[in-house]
């Protein structure tokens, strides 16, 4: 049985193991270059990385490779991708180079290997360099630029290509919620001072994507009662997304995606992100606690109103 046939949470466990092993191998690459060979050149790290990547991919492509070879292949390839993109980024002194190289390596990994865990790790690496570059260059409206990953991920999930790009899609879809959680209380950070962070476009984008998902569900429903319920829900949900900061609306979007395609993993991830968002929102400095409390109460009241309307419609339908 392959890793792909295991439940999603088991792939998560294997992914954690591969990620830790990759970190050790990255440290090994650094030790070889900086300590053993005594080369003070980040470009040399990239060369070691190419060796790692070649070894890892060849292990994964062997038809009769055992479980150990597979796991070693995933970790070595992921470490190789990190060393190549990190080494070249350090050489060029810009994260953008790292982002570009990691993106190219993701394409190579997709072309040469079918391993989902490796594809996810390398795609996440690319996304990490992208966010790092935006922050490092203090790019205005960086929140809006990070949000651009969401529609790409969503498109890849809803119109999948024959080549399996689901891990890349999941990595892209997770970028915005994860970044907004990590940066929830970053207004006072050095890089965020006097910087227009944006957010309005991201919010608008999430609303459009949310309504697109609602429309997909609405279009495929034949029952007029369900269509009416979905329409009422769409109005309330759009209002909720307007009120919530972009991080909250991104988590809502993942919950809606779970509902439309019937995916329990996305339901769990969306719920966990929303819970994290509320907990971290307490410390956000964008708004005072009083305003945040009113906003959350308004969102709660709207969601409860939507629940009540749909439940009433269900009850009426059953009584007829």
């Amino acid at each position: 049985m392959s890793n792909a046939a295991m439940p999603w949470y088991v792939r998560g466990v294997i992914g954690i193991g591969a990620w830790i092993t990759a970190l050790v191998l990255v440290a090994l690459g650094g030790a070889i270059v900086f300590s053993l060979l005594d080369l003070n050149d980040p470009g040399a790290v990239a060369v070691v990385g190419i060796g790692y990547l070649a070894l890892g991919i060849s292990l994964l492509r062997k038809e009769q490779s055992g479980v150990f070879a597979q796991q070693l292949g995933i970790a070595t390839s992921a470490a190789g991708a990190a060393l190549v993109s990190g080494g070249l980024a350090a050489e060029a002194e810009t994260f953008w180079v790292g982002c570009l190289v990691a993106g190219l390596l993701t394409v190579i990994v997709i072309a040469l290997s079918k391993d989902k865990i490796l594809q996810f790790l390398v795609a996440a690496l690319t996304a990490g360099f992208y966010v790092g570059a935006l922050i490092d260059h203090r790019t205005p409206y960086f929140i809006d630029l990070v949000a651009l990953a969401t529609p790409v991920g969503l498109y890849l999930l809803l119109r999948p290509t024959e080549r399996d790009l689901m891990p890349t899609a999941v990595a892209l879809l997770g970028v915005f919620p994860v970044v907004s959680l990590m940066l929830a209380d970053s207004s006072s950070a050095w890089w965020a001072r006097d910087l227009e962070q944006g957010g309005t476009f991201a919010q608008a984008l999430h609303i459009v994507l949310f309504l697109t998902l609602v429309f997909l569900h609405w279009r495929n429903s034949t029952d007029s009662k369900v269509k009416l319920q979905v329409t009422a829900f769409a109005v309330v949900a759009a209002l909720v997304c307007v009120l919530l900061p972009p991080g909250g609306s991104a988590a809502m979007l993942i919950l809606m995606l779970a509902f439309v395609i019937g995916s329990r993993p996305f339901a769990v991830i969306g719920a966990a992100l929303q819970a994290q968002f509320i907990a971290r929102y307490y410390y956000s400095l964008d708004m005072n606690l009083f305003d945040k409390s009113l906003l959350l109460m308004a969102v709660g009241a709207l969601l409860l109103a939507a629940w009540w309307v749909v439940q009433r419609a269900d009850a009426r339908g059953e009584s007829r």
Partner: protein
Amino acid sequence: MTDSQAAPANLAEVNELRHAGEITASQYLGAVRQCRDSDYWHRWAMRALLVLGAVHLLAGVIFFFAYNWDELSSFSKFGLLQSGLVLSFVAAIVLRLETVSGQGMLIASSVFTGVLLAVIGQVYQTGADAWELFAAWTVLTLPWALVSKSSAHWMFWIVICLTAVSLYGAQVMVALGHLEPTELAIVTGVLPIVFLACREAALRLGAEWLDDGWFRRGLVVFAMGSLFFPAIAFVFSNDSDLPGFVVFLLVTAALAYTYMQVLPDFSILAIITAFVTVLGMAIGGRLIHETISFDGSGQLVVGLFLLGGWCAAMTTGAVRFLRYLHKEVSPEVQQ
């Protein structure tokens, strides 16, 4: 997809069909819809709307009183909170505790109780430690948890209880030197196991409303998470953490036996395997460090090389073990 083909049973099968080129990108959503359990997802959506609405509303209430608005008199604060408490309690009875909405209202009563205690502390400047607030909250809301017939209510109560115990341990027992931090971690790690045992016993006695997989998984994550840190601390040099390490092993063995032999549950075994794998990696790291001190360049490279191989071997072991278990123990949640 041709008519002669059987409809896919789940999302994973639809994905396999798409990647095998059996269906086109434009047919994908149609195929997803065919295998989607509409009734299940309708129930899920209704529950999610209610839970999200209640959580946002109650979080808003907590934020509001945490703001300590000067323009609102103490009388108004108490009035608002006590009204909320009474109204939610009455609503829970009217809506009945067998319904999700009734259960949600009773959870709201528990939340209002905690906020009320916090506001009492704010207004009267009682000077009470945080643990006293949580301890009182735990005691006062226990009767509601007992009558709630809701896993969510019990989980909420357990979180408050564990917070109370952790704070009491940290602010009193550890601060006064009566308890070591490791011993406190053991207590907060073993307590969820006690709750888990009670849950399993209650389930056997007929409390079917406790039969939620997430509740069991949540308690196991709480327990393993609390016990994991002293176990790791012991591995990385602190000998005083030995009891934590031993308790981690004992709890792991007990959980593994229970959920492999007595109440087979693959998801619990996957959680345990994850923690044990990471601990195993740490033990390997320590042993390698003890054997080859990382002083010189060559030793560092050899040590990291061995550690990389060890981590890959541990992951391999985890994969093999999980594959074996997957065959032996039917998973509760496949997709």
